[in-house]
């Protein structure tokens, strides 16, 4: 039985945690939240210099050619530090989409720039409220252009290239759309997590290349999202762990009725419940990353399980962390709201809890899935 990260991978975790503690303390998050910035550009450059954006991109395309085990470790630390970065959009989604569906030329053109962090990528899926239905997208690809309105698109305000999901007569297509062109109109939109940027993208005959020059099977897109779900689960776990740590530290230091509030069972049991959910989320995230890294047929079930566990752990820890802090937890001054915002944002980004619970049961009963 070897269900654990290697020594080298543990070292990477220590290194990443120390790096983010130094360069991404919570006042970094606060600075982005308090401004109109959609990211911390200097932090992005540091992270890119560390090679984190290159982690799973093959060496042939300027990457490090490491595995998803390493990326999972970094994802957890991104969540732990609530990093104000487009890491998930560029690394888990755009890079993976180009790597999976791109032609040789497309991969050679874009992956080295995404690996170096010189370019930021994102993926534009959503168009309207409700669950995403891949077969009902209104965005159309005609010839070498794409038109439609995508919203919200994470990190589009800082992105150089967007993978736009669209339909043509040939079916579902993932289109590569450079941001710097007249056919792309980007309008920033306010979301509940202002430490990350979101936009509405209006595409008017925007120049587009079809990834791989062919329509894609919706199930292949779902496979990609399953992989991303595992990474999001690790990031959610990081958020959950930070929220638990903050709640624990406060419960030790805050006194009421003559004693630390952490000595009351009402608080103890709340924190124990957080620990339980975090532990379940971690163990399920282990299985998720194993299934992803080993390309197991279990991936759809493992990813859905990790995703649901991650959503539940992060939401519960972030909500109950504020509750543990009492009134101070409700202030702008305390950091509790960073975790609350990020936990909810991450739970919405690639399909929310009910969708993934449904996919989980489909995985258990081997039913086909369509909805994302």
């Amino acid at each position, binding site marked *: 039985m070897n*269900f654990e990260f290697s020594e080298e991978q543990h070292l990477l975790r220590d290194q990443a945690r120390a790096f983010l503690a130094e360069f991404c303390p919570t006042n970094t998050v606060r600075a982005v939240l308090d401004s109109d910035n959609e990211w911390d550009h200097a932090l992005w450059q540091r992270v890119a210099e560390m090679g984190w954006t290159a982690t799973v991109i093959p060496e042939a395309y300027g990457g490090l050619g490491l595995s998803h085990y390493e990326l999972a470790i970094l994802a957890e630390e991104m969540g732990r530090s609530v990093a104000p970065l487009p890491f998930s959009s560029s690394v888990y989604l755009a890079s993976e989409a180009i790597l999976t569906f791109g032609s040789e030329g497309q991969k050679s053109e874009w992956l080295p720039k995404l690996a170096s962090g010189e370019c930021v990528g994102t993926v534009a899926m959503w168009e309207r409220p409700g669950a995403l239905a891949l077969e009902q997208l209104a965005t159309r690809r005609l010839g070498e252009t794409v038109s439609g309105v995508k919203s919200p698109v994470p990190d589009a305000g800082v992105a150089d290239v967007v993978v736009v999901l669209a339909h043509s007569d040939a079916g579902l297509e993932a289109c590569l759309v450079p941001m710097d062109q007249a056919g792309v109109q980007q309008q920033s939109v306010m979301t509940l997590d202002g430490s990350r940027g979101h936009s509405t993208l209006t595409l008017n005959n925007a120049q587009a290349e079809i990834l791989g020059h062919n329509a894609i099977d919706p199930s292949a897109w779902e496979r990609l999202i399953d992989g991303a779900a595992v990474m999001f689960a690790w990031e959610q776990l990081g958020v959950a762990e930070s929220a638990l740590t903050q709640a624990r530290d406060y419960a030790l230091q805050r006194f009421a009725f003559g004693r630390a509030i952490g000595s009351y069972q009402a608080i*103890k049991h709340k924190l124990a419940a957080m620990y339980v959910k975090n532990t379940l989320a971690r*163990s399920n995230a282990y299985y998720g990353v194993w299934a992803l890294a080993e390309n197991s047929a279990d991936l759809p079930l493992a990813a859905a399980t990790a995703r*649901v566990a991650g959503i539940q752990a992060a939401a519960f820890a972030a909500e109950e962390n504020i509750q543990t802090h009492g009134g101070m937890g409700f202030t702008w001054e305390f950091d509790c709201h960073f975790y609350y915002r990020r936990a909810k944002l991450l739970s919405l980004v690639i399909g929310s809890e009910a969708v993934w619970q449904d996919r989980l*049961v489909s995985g258990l009963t081997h039913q086909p899935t369509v909805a994302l």
Partner: protein
Amino acid sequence: MDFNDTPAEARFREEAVTWLSHNVPSDDAFWALTPLEQAKLWQKRKYDDGWACLGWAPEFGGRGASPIEEVIWRQEEARYELPTNFFLIGQGMIGPTLMAWATADDKARYLPPLASGEEVWCQLFSEPAGGSDLAALRTRAEPDGDDWIINGQKIWTSGAHYADYGVIVVRTDPTLPKHKGLSYFYIDMRAPGVEIKPIKQLTGDADFNEVYFNDVRVSDRQRLGEVGQGWQVALTTLMNERAAIGGGIGKMDVDLAIAIAQDVELDGQPAIDNAAVRTRIADWYVQEAGLKYTGYRSLTALSRGALPGPENSIGKLVGAPKMQAMASFLMDLLGASGAISDEAMAVKAGIIQRAYMGAPGMRIAGGTDEIMANIIAERVLGLPQEPRLDKGIPFTDVPTG
């Protein structure tokens, strides 16, 4: 990551598989015995070939196996339906206590027959006045020459009615603060004055007992640890109340939930297609898979020769309420038929109803949900204990009710 044995573990597993395939009783004569007789016969067979209490030293009947080898053995033995529960408390909790605290003579006398199953032990800790608050126990032992005279009552004693020996914590000095006035003995369960009364549980079964002590005479040689050191000795016993690594609770799993949800209808469709049903099943699977893979993480630590982290402490706290909630929900899916527990008529021969009726006990035994949450909060998260009204004052002055 992979889920494979190391080469040494694989060889050990192969050895275990082979021995089991040749030695697991299959004859009708075996299955005609009472469960206790079956258990004793099977235990003796294992003992004779070196497969009992594997982690114990050879002189006590074991083979000095590593923790991961013990787990591999348990996994392989669990593939057969064999009676092993009768020895869990004695071998799992009391054996290690004897090893730590008994004299060399007593270890040589008592450990081998405990390993072979020829002698069964029980644990006399809980009392009507001391469950979660174990150290509040009131059973007294008073010195009388070289002996002690025990008076009082224990409760929830599993297996007292078939045990040969028991370990008992008693109060030897009620004028001291409560943890300091305790002492620990082993006793002969057939000694004069020991009276055992079964407790009928709400399930209708009787697995537990009340045990009364009326002037029971015990030699001072049967004391483990110093007079007044009983709490420390008791902690040795309780620390060995091991989490069942890699194991589950009963047969209430998501596979069963899916089978039932596929079988019955809700709103004219298979229940498995109902969104509310799917949500519940997904949440239970998150718990079930989470516990399973938590177990794998612990096994990995054992396999590397390390101690598992605190993550295993969540097992009972998640598993027992899940069993209750699942059983309740599956009965709901069955509608009024869900009430039928008659084995001949009930869906799945009544295991759902039995699980529901047994679940309250699972949530209490070996530490209630609330105590388990306290343990996680205090030992894992480092939160302080509740202030205690009984701290540092003579036991006789502690408020009771």
